[in-house]
């Protein structure tokens, strides 16, 4: 198979999103440090958001906002899919709240004399 054909088949946003998801997954599974695990969750989440956004993107179309590029009559013919964008908006906010909560638990465990490594918490060990 031709290399150019292969490159043309890659969806750039989804591919970079997938790579970011895999990096995040590696961080969650392989890093023992609680803080790094929390950060890995946010990295993975960013990748998932990129993938969701790429699903709603339509080549050659404009953002789902009415302006001179697309008026109400031509909206559905000229705009990208707004639903994934609304979903990602929600996901970002929830992700921020969950990250703050995860990091607070990590800080609490650390301040309470615990280690920052997940290995030292019996039930979480694997």
């Amino acid at each position, binding site marked *: 198979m031709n290399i150019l054909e292969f490159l043309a*088949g*890659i*969806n750039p946003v*989804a*591919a970079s*999103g*997938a790579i970011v*998801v*895999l990096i995040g*997954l*590696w961080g969650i*599974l*392989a890093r023992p440090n609680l803080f790094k695990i929390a950060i890995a969750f946010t990295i993975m989440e960013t990748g998932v958001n990129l*993938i969701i956004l*790429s*699903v*709603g*993107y*339509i*080549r050659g179309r404009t*953002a*789902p*906002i*009415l*302006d001179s590029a697309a008026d*109400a009559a031509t*909206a*559905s013919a000229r*705009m*990208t*899919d*707004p*639903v994934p*964008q*609304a979903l990602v*908006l*929600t996901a*970002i*906010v*929830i992700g*921020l*709240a*969950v990250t*703050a*909560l995860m*990091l*607070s*638990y990590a*800080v*609490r465990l650390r*301040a*309470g*004399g615990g280690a920052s490594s997940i290995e030292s918490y019996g039930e979480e060990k*694997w």
Partner: protein
Amino acid sequence: MMRKILVILAIVGFAVVLLPLAYQAGVQPAPGALATEYLEKAPAELGTANVVTAIVVSYRGFDTLGEVAVLFAATAGVGALLTRKRLGLASTREKRMPATEILRTATRFLTSLLILFGVYIFVHGHLTPGGGFQGGVVIATAILLNLLAEPESHLAHGVMTGVEALSGAAYVTLGLLGAFLAWGFLDPRVLPAGSIGALVSAGTVPLIYSVIGLKVGAELSGILDALKGDRE
């Protein structure tokens, strides 16, 4: 060793699952039926120029109410976890390093501009890319700058709690107004839709997004203050 193999297997498995999304997936030729419906109906029914806002605030408004509730729960959790007593810190607080002159001057200069910008973003949420969540985050950055510039200072908890409670109550009230005066809970057609693109248009959408912006700003500021770690 076993663990490393398992990790690699999990990552390879995930990569195989993600492959169809990243390769040869192409991009869809047209929005789905639901998205088309939103794109065609939202400007006509609600008068919002930004269709994403119409979905977030009105069509899926109940989700957004739940989202704001989750954000509130997380803020409460962070605030409860990170108190001085729970962290086991001594009651005599150590002195923090004062901020530099540059940071303090920049903060004095930027605070009002940032708050103005945040308000601009959430007030124009139905017209431009932006809205309550984004505007709230911008306002929280103004608070963060102030916390950094004055390390010994504290957020006025009473004010923040008041803003948060009032904006939450206003959000639910606007939703209930929609249920009684329009077609359903969180329906923005309580007020006239107006002309698309005008600041005062889209019924109660700008009002709902403004109270969301205030609430998110207050909650994120609360999280930032709690993360400083010197709450009583």
